[in-house]
């Protein structure tokens, strides 16, 4: 039982802690799990989250930065005032919990549809697009000399990588071919400035409270590259969850996003943002294809994966809306 290992672990690094209670798995694939639990402490319970690869699953997938890097980035963000959970402990071999880290639990909502529809967030919603601009500016300004080792990817390399992923699926899609041509024709080249890029900054990976953004999660795709990539990805239609006229996560306009970013002292390049939005739309489409492939090849025959395969057509209509819009 995981509570036994967690209890032994917290008593080593959390002064006064006597054990843990209420451990529950929130999500988990074969290689990575998230657990919530409370640290029992004389001053009151401390809400905590464990992110880990269980023992025997040390290797990270090629695009992922790895849990150690994720912990380092979240701590760096926390210290710089970017909304982020505080990292409490990085797992060591004596914890006997695999690899990963334990962080402070931030209360709030991550489920995009609830954030977009529940009354609890009605006051926060109109503020979020601009607020997200400020958060991204802070994130892109994290000190580079303190970052963990991360892969570096410019636009040209990303196009090449996605084309390879797509071709390996042997899944001819004329709309995807059109998007690949468009991306090559509009490749903005290496960005003048290379910064930390979160890589998966979107509605669904943010903890939102009544007051707005409380934490940025899921740093596993962090890399170095064009900061405009994050601004484009947060606008991809798939992350608007039906609120298609509000490009920034279904919350608000690009103008508000850009204003928040520039108010925090950083410059926006709208053409690069558009490029990365097209790239991001194609990226999610190709990921849907990857789900289809894993559904076919893995033994568990997950229905959810099968149905995500059938969501590639959503990205095709969104690519057409971006590249070949019809008269209104």
């Amino acid at each position, binding site marked *: 039982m995981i509570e036994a290992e967690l209890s032994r672990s917290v008593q080593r690094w959390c002064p006064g802690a006597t054990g843990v209670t209420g451990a529950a798995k929130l999500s988990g694939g074969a290689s990575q799990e998230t657990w919530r639990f409370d640290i029992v402490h004389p001053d009151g319970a401390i809400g905590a989250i464990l992110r880990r690869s269980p023992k025997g699953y040390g290797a990270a997938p090629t695009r992922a930065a790895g849990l150690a890097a994720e912990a380092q980035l979240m701590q760096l963000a926390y210290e710089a005032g970017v909304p982020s959970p505080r990292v409490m402990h990085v797992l060591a071999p004596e914890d006997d919990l695999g690899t990963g880290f334990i962080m402070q639990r931030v209360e709030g909502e991550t489920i995009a549809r609830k954030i977009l529809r529940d009354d609890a967030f009605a006051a926060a919603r109109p503020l979020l697009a601009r607020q997200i601009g400020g958060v991204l500016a802070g994130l892109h300004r994290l000190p580079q000399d303190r970052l963990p080792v991360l892969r570096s990817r410019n636009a040209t390399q990303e196009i090449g990588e996605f084309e390879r992923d797509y071709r390996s699926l042997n899944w001819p899609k004329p709309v995807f071919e059109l998007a690949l041509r468009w991306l090559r024709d509009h490749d903005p080249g290496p960005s003048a400035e290379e910064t930390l890029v979160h890589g998966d900054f979107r509605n669904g990976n943010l903890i939102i409270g009544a007051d707005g953004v409380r934490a940025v999660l899921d740093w596993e795709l962090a890399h170095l590259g064009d900061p405009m990539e994050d601004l484009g990805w947060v606008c991809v239609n798939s992350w608007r969850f039906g609120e298609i006229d509000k490009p920034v996560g279904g919350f608000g306009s690009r103008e508000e996003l850009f204003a928040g970013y520039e108010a925090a002292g950083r410059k926006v390049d709208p053409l690069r943002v558009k490029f990365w939005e097209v790239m991001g739309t194609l990226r999610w489409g190709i990921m849907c294809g990857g789900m289809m492939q894993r559904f076919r090849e893995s033994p568990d025959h997950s229905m959810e994966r099968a*149905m995500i395969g059938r969501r590639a057509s959503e990205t095709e209509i969104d690519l057409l809306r971006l590249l070949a819009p019809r008269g209104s």
Partner: protein
Amino acid sequence: MQDEPTPIELTKSVADFLRNDITPLISGHQAFKLRVAINILDLVTRQLTQEEGGDAAEVERLRALLGTDGSVSELNRVLAERIAKGELDLATPGLAEHLWQTTMDKLAVDQPNYASYKRELGR
């Protein structure tokens, strides 16, 4: 010729049974999976209903665009290759209209509630 009821009718009967009789009995993660299962059967029903007509019209358009003949999957492969080579692009008469029609036909089966699709349907 196979006997009836048709695959469409059979699939629909299973989906309706799961939706009306089983859904009220199930909760938690299994209820989520049951919803996914029902969604799959509904998708299959839509595809069985619409695929034949949609594919026939798609093949007609592809023949006209490409000047060659083949199955719907063969012709799609040829179209993908020609776009990749730059032989066809959005300036090619009929290409944008073809891609739009084909994509709309796919969404009608895959995700008829997708907001972008509903918006474009109204155009």
